C-alpha cells in the first residue's frame, strides 16, 4: 500500500495498526483463575464481615446496653461495600488492566452521583433553619389524603385501625383469638394441676420456646409440664398465623388437629400421661366453650400480636432485648437536625414505642 519502509512514519497509519504482524495484535492481559478466585474469596470474606458487623452491633447494643451513633453503622457498612465494589471493578471488570479513561469515566459518574446526593441533602436536611414553615411534615406520615382506605389518617394508623376493626369483628379471627386464649387457659390449668415449682417459670407467649427447652431438659419431665408446653406451642402457632395474616379458616378444628398430632407424638415418645392430657385439651378445643370476650381483652390480644410480629420479624432470637435496643437506637438516632426538627414525629414515635415497650415488659 505504500512505498515506505516499515520503520518510517506512515501518515496514513501512524500507530502501525495495519502493519503485517501487528494488525490483530491484542495487548489485553488475561486475568487468570488464581486472581479471580482470590478476589472471590476476598469478596466473600468482606460479605461475612459486613453481615458480622451488623450482628455484632446488635449484640453489643443488647449485651452492654451501648447505643452506637447512627453514623457508625453507615460508615462501616459503606466502607466495606466500597472496598468490595473497588475489587469487582478493578479485577472482574478489569479496570486495572484497561485504558485509564474507563476508570476516569466511572470516577466521574460517582462524583456526579455524590453531587446529586450532596446538594439535594443540603436542601432537604436544612429546612426550617430560618423559616419554620419550611420544616418537615406536620402530621408524621402524612394525612392519608386521597387514599380512599386511609380515612384521613396516616397510612400506618389506617392499616392498624382497619385490621383492628376486622380483628374485633371478623368471626373467624375472633374465634382464632379466643381459641388461643382458651388454649392458654388450658395450659395454665394443666400446669397448675402439676406438683412442684414448675409454675414459677412464667410461661409467657414469647418464650414458649424457652419453656419447651426447659421442660425438655428436665430429666423427670412432669407430664403436666410437657402437656402445657405442647398446648402453649399450639396457641402460639395460632397467634403466629394471626400476626402474619396467614389463612386459618377453622381455628378450633386446626387447634384440635394440632393438639391431637402433638398428643400422638408425645405418646410415640413415651410420654403417655402427657399425651393423654393433650388429647383432653384437643377434645376441649373442638367442643368446649370459648372464653368470654371483652374489648380490653381484644385490645390486649392485638398488642400481643403486634409484639409477636416485631419480635419475630428479624431481630433474631433476642426478642425482648432486640426490641428494647431498637427503641433506644431509634429514639437516640434522632440526633442532629432531623431529630431536633422532627418534633411531631418524635412525639408520635415515643407514644408508639412506649406501647411496644409496655408490651414487651408485661408478662401474660
Amino acid at each position, binding site marked *: 500500500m505504500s512505498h515506505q519502509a516499515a520503520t518510517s512514519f506512515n501518515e496514513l497509519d501512524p500507530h502501525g495498526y495495519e502493519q503485517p504482524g501487528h494488525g*490483530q495484535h491484542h495487548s489485553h*492481559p488475561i486475568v487468570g483463575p488464581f486472581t479471580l478466585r482470590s478476589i*472471590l474469596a476476598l469478596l466473600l470474606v468482606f460479605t461475612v464481615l459486613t453481615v458480622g458487623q451488623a450482628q455484632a452491633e446488635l449484640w453489643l447494643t443488647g449485651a452492654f446496653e451501648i447505643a452506637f451513633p447512627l453514623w457508625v453503622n453507615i460508615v462501616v457498612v459503606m466502607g466495606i*461495600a466500597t472496598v468490595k465494589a473497588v475489587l*469487582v471493578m478493578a479485577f472482574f471488570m478489569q479496570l486495572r488492566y484497561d485504558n485509564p479513561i474507563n476508570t476516569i469515566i*466511572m470516577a466521574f459518574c460517582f462524583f456526579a452521583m455524590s453531587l446529586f446526593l450532596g446538594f439535594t441533602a443540603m436542601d432537604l436536611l436544612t429546612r426550617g433553619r430560618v423559616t419554620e414553615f419550611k420544616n418537615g411534615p406536620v402530621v*408524621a406520615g*402524612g394525612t392519608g389524603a386521597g387514599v380512599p382506605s386511609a380515612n384521613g389518617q396516616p397510612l*400506618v394508623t389506617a392499616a392498624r385501625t382497619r385490621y383492628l376493626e376486622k380483628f374485633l369483628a371478623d368471626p373467624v379471627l375472633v374465634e382464632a383469638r379466643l381459641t388461643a386464649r382458651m388454649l392458654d387457659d388450658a395450659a395454665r390449668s394443666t400446669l397448675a394441676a402439676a406438683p412442684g415449682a414448675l409454675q414459677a417459670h412464667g410461661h409467657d407467649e414469647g418464650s414458649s420456646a424457652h419453656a419447651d427447652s426447659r421442660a425438655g431438659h428436665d430429666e423427670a419431665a412432669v407430664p403436666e409440664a410437657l402437656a402445657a408446653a405442647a398446648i402453649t406451642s399450639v396457641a402460639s402457632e395460632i397467634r403466629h398465623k394471626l400476626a402474619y395474616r396467614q389463612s386459618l379458616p377453622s381455628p378450633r378444628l386446626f387447634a384440635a388437629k394440632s393438639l391431637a398430632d402433638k398428643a400422638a407424638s408425645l405418646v410415640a415418645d413415651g410420654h403417655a400421661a402427657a399425651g393423654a392430657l393433650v388429647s383432653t385439651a384437643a377434645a376441649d378445643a373442638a367442643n368446649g366453650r370459648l372464653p368470654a370476650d371483652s374489648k380490653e381483652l381484644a385490645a390486649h390480644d392485638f398488642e400481643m400480636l403486634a409484639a409477636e410480629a416485631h419480635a419475630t420479624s428479624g431481630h433474631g432470637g433476642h426478642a425482648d432485648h432486640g426490641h428494647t435496643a431498637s427503641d433506644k437506637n431509634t429514639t437516640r438516632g434522632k440526633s442532629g437536625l*432531623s431529630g431536633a426538627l422532627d418534633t411531631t414525629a418524635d412525639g408520635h414515635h415515643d407514644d408508639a414505642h412506649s406501647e411496644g415497650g409496655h408490651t414487651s415488659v408485661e408478662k401474660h
Partner: protein
Amino acid sequence: MTTLPTSQSLPDLHEKKKPLWSRYVHGHHWRSQTEEFDGLKLGFWLFLTTEVLLFAGIFCAYCLFRAMYPGAWAEGSGSLNWQWGALNTIVLLLSSYTMAAAIYCFQTDQQKRGRMNLLITIISGAAFVAIKLVFEYYPKWTMGKRPGSLFDYPFATDPHVPLWWSVYYCGTALHALHVIIGMILIARVYVKSLKGQYGPTYYTGVEVAGLYWHLVDLIWIFLFPLLYLIH
C-alpha cells in the same frame, strides 16, 4: 499476566475449518480490531455510568429519607430477613466470578468450560430472582408490607414505614429487572458461543455482557447493606 496469541500463532488450518472467532472482520469505520474493541469498551463503560446514575435516584431517595426518618428505616430494615439478602449476595458474587471465568475461558479457547460458566451465571441470576420473589416479595406482600398507598400492615409503629417499603420495592424491583436483562444478554452470548463465535482473538460480546453483569452485582453490593443491615 500473559498476553493473548496473535493471529499468527494459530495453527494453520484450512480456511473453512477455522473457527468463527478467528475469521472475525472488524467494522470498516474502525482502523483496526484493537481500536474497535477499545472503542466498544469505552462506549459500554459510558452506558454503565448511565445505569449507575439511574440507580442514583433510588439511592438519593433512600439516603434522604433515612436521614429524615431514621426510625422508619430502622423498623423497616429490621423486618427484612438478612439471611435471604446474604444468600442473594453470595449467589451474585459467585455468578460474577463465573462470568469473569467465562471470559478467561474464551480468552484461552476453552469453549466448553466457557459455556458452562456462562450457564452457571444465568442459573445464578435465575436463582437470585427466584429467591427474591418467593422468599421475600411474596411473604411481605401478603403480610401487607407494601409500598405507599397499598400499605396494609397493621403492626407497624413508625408512621413513615410505607415510604421505606416504597424505596425497598422500587430499588430491589429495578435491580431484579436488571438481573433479568443481564440474563438475557448472557443467554444471547451463550447461543452465539455455540457456533464458535468467541475465542482468543475475538471475545468482545462476552466481555460486554460480563461488564453488564458485574455492574448488576455492584449495585447489589451497595443495595444489600443499605437495605438489610441498618440498626
